[in-house]
């Protein structure tokens, strides 16, 4: 049904909705006595992670195992990659071992696209550089839909380090496809070149954007990517960032009563989001993790469940 999942922009509204509906049914498995379906018995899913990850890799692993697929975890540390093996040679090795799907996270934007041309199996992009993270966008959309009942017409405000955020890029594409309106809020230094061509509005002022928001999604300040040019070159201090672009109790109170707070994790408590907001009833942060498993089960089923 879906050959590869490389970019959220590849999904049309019907396919994206099918994934979300399928995820809704998969969610029931988590409440059952036997949390397992026989559907992907005999299929092999390889988690190929060149970057650190806790929740995404675990989430894909749990999802594949709940569908009875065999899972091979392959991280760059402790593998032949540290001896200098190229992505292509690693890919061909995995191919020879009979991987039906490869879930890849790579620090280089576009690596999953290359991989998709080298191997026969399905490729799922689990985050490539600063490019895309489509399953995160799907689980975010799923979370919004289950909390607010719809996606079309929602106003979603995405705040923070858009420049380095694959989550933001994938969310903008998918939410646009599904009929939501997106506003990106960030300091000018943390917006990518060409953001004007994205299907989203851009603002530098968090307070004015929040007043009409149904959803506010806080992005992580990506210290590891900011360190390249020195964090000072992007914003003066954590304290100043947090004052202008952080979500605290006062800002949360000014938002509409039904509005929800999202964060893809991992969080920097005290920088982009305060601990009180992160732990409040309007935060969906823990829910997002659970929904991630359902959405990834849906994606794996739709990619590997058929012919």
């Amino acid at each position, binding site marked *: 049904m879906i050959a590869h999942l490389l970019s959220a922009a590849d999904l049309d509204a019907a396919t994206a909705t099918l994934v979300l509906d399928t995820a809704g049914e998969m969610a029931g498995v988590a409440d059952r006595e036997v949390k397992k379906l026989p559907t992907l018995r005999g299929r092999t899913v390889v988690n190929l992670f060149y970057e650190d990850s806790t929740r995404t890799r675990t989430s894909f692993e749990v999802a594949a195992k709940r569908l009875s697929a065999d899972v091979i975890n392959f991280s760059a540390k402790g593998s032949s990659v540290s001896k200098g093996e190229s992505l292509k040679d690693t890919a061909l090795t995995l191919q020879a071992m009979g991987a039906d799907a490869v879930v890849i996270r790579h620090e280089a934007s576009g690596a999953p696209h290359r991989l998709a041309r080298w191997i026969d199996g399905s490729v799922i992009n689990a985050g490539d550089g600063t490019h895309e993270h489509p399953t995160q966008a799907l689980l975010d959309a799923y979370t919004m839909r289950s909390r607010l009942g719809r996606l079309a017409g929602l106003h979603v405000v995405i705040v923070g380090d858009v420049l380095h955020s694959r989550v933001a890029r994938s969310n903008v594409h998918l939410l646009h496809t599904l009929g939501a309106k997106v506003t990106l809020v960030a300091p000018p230094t943390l917006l990518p070149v060409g953001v004007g061509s994205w299907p989203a509005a851009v603002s530098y002022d968090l307070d004015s954007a929040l007043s009409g928001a149904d959803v506010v999604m806080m992005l992580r300040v990506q210290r590891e990517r900011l360190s390249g040019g020195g964090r000072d070159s992007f914003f003066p201090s954590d304290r100043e960032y947090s004052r202008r672009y952080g979500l605290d109790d006062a800002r949360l109170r000014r938002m509409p009563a039904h509005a929800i707070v999202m964060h893809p994790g991992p969080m920097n408590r005290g920088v982009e989001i305060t601990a009180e907001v992160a732990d409040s009833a309007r935060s969906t942060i823990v829910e997002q993790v659970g929904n991630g498993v359902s959405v990834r089960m849906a994606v794996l*089923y739709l990619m590997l469940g*058929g*012919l």
Partner: protein
Amino acid sequence: MAYPQTTKTILTAADISRTVDRIAHQILEKTEGARDAVLLGIPTRGFPLARRLAGRIATFEDVSIPVGVLDVTLYRDDLRMRAARAIGKTQIPPAGIDGRLVILVDDVLFSGRTVRAALDALGDLGRPRAVQLAVLVDRGHRELPIRADYVGKNIPTSLSESVRVRLSETDGADEVQLYPGTDTSAAPATGAAERRVVA
């Protein structure tokens, strides 16, 4: 020829209504009042049939039987033969199925593979006291050792024919038809869906 060359109506709306009534009575009789029964319909048309049965049983004996829906797509043995298909809804009544008599309800019994999948799915959901099967139509050609406990009508068919069940809830009218030709993907030789009809 013993088999019709054109579309033939096997059950009219009135026939279906009488048949459902009869199965409801049979369930009450065979289960001594159906006190611990749960009706689980297999999508798409098993679910409205299960609801109708529960409705009739409530009228006849004033017992309220929980009704649920059990999608078996993820347990099918023919998933690899076609592109991944959309999965349907599963909703088990809140009281669950442990220790209860589960009556599976489907529209057509054919190869038996859907029922096999349903039995596997039930095993993952709990442990019923017993499982029974009610179908509106049994068209024969079983490929597995499976039989129904309640059958609305036995229809002798050839493999080159198809049975189409229409229900007002899903199709706007009540009718069972037999027509020549098969949806190739539905032929039991390829192990596909029993209820598959030409769209």
